[in-house]
């Protein structure tokens, strides 16, 4: 089930024996226990788990927002100590700057990196076109729908051309129709750039549709329960969800997750 049949490639993201311990009301609680996983360059990896399993904490550690209690997180061989434009993050809530127009939000990163407007403005225009927001460049985030905000959140990360793309349930707050449109858009974008992606979700369909490899996590304490290689053909569209292989895998994952969900719901 693991991905060891693949040719050896450079590990883009390496998570080695990561533990995270919180102190809640004088009691030590493990949020993450001995997480180890390796993501190769150009791979789309999803981490699937119930809410509260620590998957977002794990992503925050790769981003550099949070730090493991023990263990190491490396991106392209370099230990992660702080956030960096080399690791682009798409948040669950869009986290756009309300006082910046769509274009200013998208180009914020490029401006921090002292890139020339002549270089980044045409790229920004192309990316806005790609995510279907060309007509909204001058709008403020308050004027956009939830799906449009997430597209801006994706566009601003794409313009930075990061080494890895970290996505923390980016479509979790959207309605079902918008979510499936966003998934198709992401697949399209991914086919074009083939960026390394770490995608956190609690939605089985989403993980299967998007990812090459799915890590399944358990609820508190967060551990990796299983790894699945998703061999659905690419390029993918939402149509792959109707393939027989898809529903088989779904059933398999459901069974794996059910015990976890039951265990989590009986805990106080």
């Amino acid at each position, binding site marked *: 089930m693991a991905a060891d049949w693949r040719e050896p490639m450079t590990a883009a993201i390496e998570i080695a024996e990561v533990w995270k311990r919180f102190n809640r009301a004088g009691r030590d609680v493990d949020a993450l226990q001995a997480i180890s996983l390796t993501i190769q360059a150009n791979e789309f990896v999803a981490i699937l788990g119930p809410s509260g399993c620590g998957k977002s904490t794990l992503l925050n550690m790769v*981003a*550099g*927002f949070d730090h493991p209690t023990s263990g190491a997180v490396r991106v392209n061989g370099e230990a992660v100590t*702080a*956030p*960096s*434009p080399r*690791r*682009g*993050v798409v*948040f669950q*809530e869009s*986290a*756009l*700057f*309300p*006082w*910046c127009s769509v274009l200013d939000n998208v180009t*914020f*990163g490029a401006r*921090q*990196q002292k890139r020339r407007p002549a270089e980044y403005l045409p790229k920004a225009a192309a990316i806005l076109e790609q995510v279907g927001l060309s007509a909204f460049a001058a709008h*403020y*985030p*308050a*004027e956009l729908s939830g799906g449009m905000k997430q597209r801006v959140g994706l566009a*601003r990360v794409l313009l*930075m051309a990061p080494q890895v793309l970290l996505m923390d349930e980016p479509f979790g707050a959207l309605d079902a129709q918008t979510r499936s449109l966003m998934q198709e858009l992401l697949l399209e974008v991914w086919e074009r750039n083939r960026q390394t992606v770490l995608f956190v979700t609690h939605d089985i369909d989403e993980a299967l549709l998007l990812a090459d490899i799915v890590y399944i996590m358990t609820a508190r304490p967060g551990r990796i329960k299983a790894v699945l290689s998703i061999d659905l053909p690419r390029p993918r569209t939402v149509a792959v969800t109707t393939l027989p292989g898809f529903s088989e895998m779904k059933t398999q994952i459901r069974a794996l997750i059910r015990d976890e969900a039951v265990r989590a719901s009986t805990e106080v």
Partner: protein
Amino acid sequence: MDWLPEGIVPSPEAVARSWRTWIFGAATRSLSPYSGTWSGAVLHSAERVIEGFGLATLIGVPLGLLIGWSRRTSDLVDPTIQLFRPVPITAWIPFALAFFGIYDASAIFLVALGAFFPIVVNATQGARDIDILLLRAGRMMGASRAVELRSIVFPAAMPSIFTGLRLGVGVSWTAVIISEMVAVKSGLGYALWDAYYVGRMDICVATMISFGLLGFLSDRLILLCWRYAAPWRRIGASR
């Protein structure tokens, strides 16, 4: 209005008449201090408010943002501010007089001090209340510490900052009245106290209304700046 004591509360007509003379001057040459001197008094007071309030804004907003944003600045400065904040502005008068004398500086100091606390406290709160995701987004895109403070914390704290400015300008007018009553010999506050001493309640009432108008106008002016400074809020408000 028989129940009102005779001679204490002036009639509206008397107030209007005296106020008009105060503003435009008497038809004949007059030695009265309340003939054509209103605009001068307003200018004196307004100037002190603008200078003191401006000083409080220039110091209070950046300092408040720094306190709310940087733990180190907070530990360093905030205890001192909280120590001085409960001291009423009126209690500072003898100190201000001893230090600055009976000059404009005393009045400006008192106005600035009075306005400083609401401004700094609100800017601090605005910076502390910032959505952590906005800071993370900025850091993820490579924002330096300086950019974070200037381009993320400052605009995010804008609503709180303007609340502080509106409260601060109110305190400014209060402070200018008391400082003109005791510390300097000009302005509307001085006119109010002087008119009381010579029994001109009509002028007292005209002064009170003047202060009300000035307070209202300065608040409107700050609201106008707010709308200009935060165009993105207009969209949110119209929904």
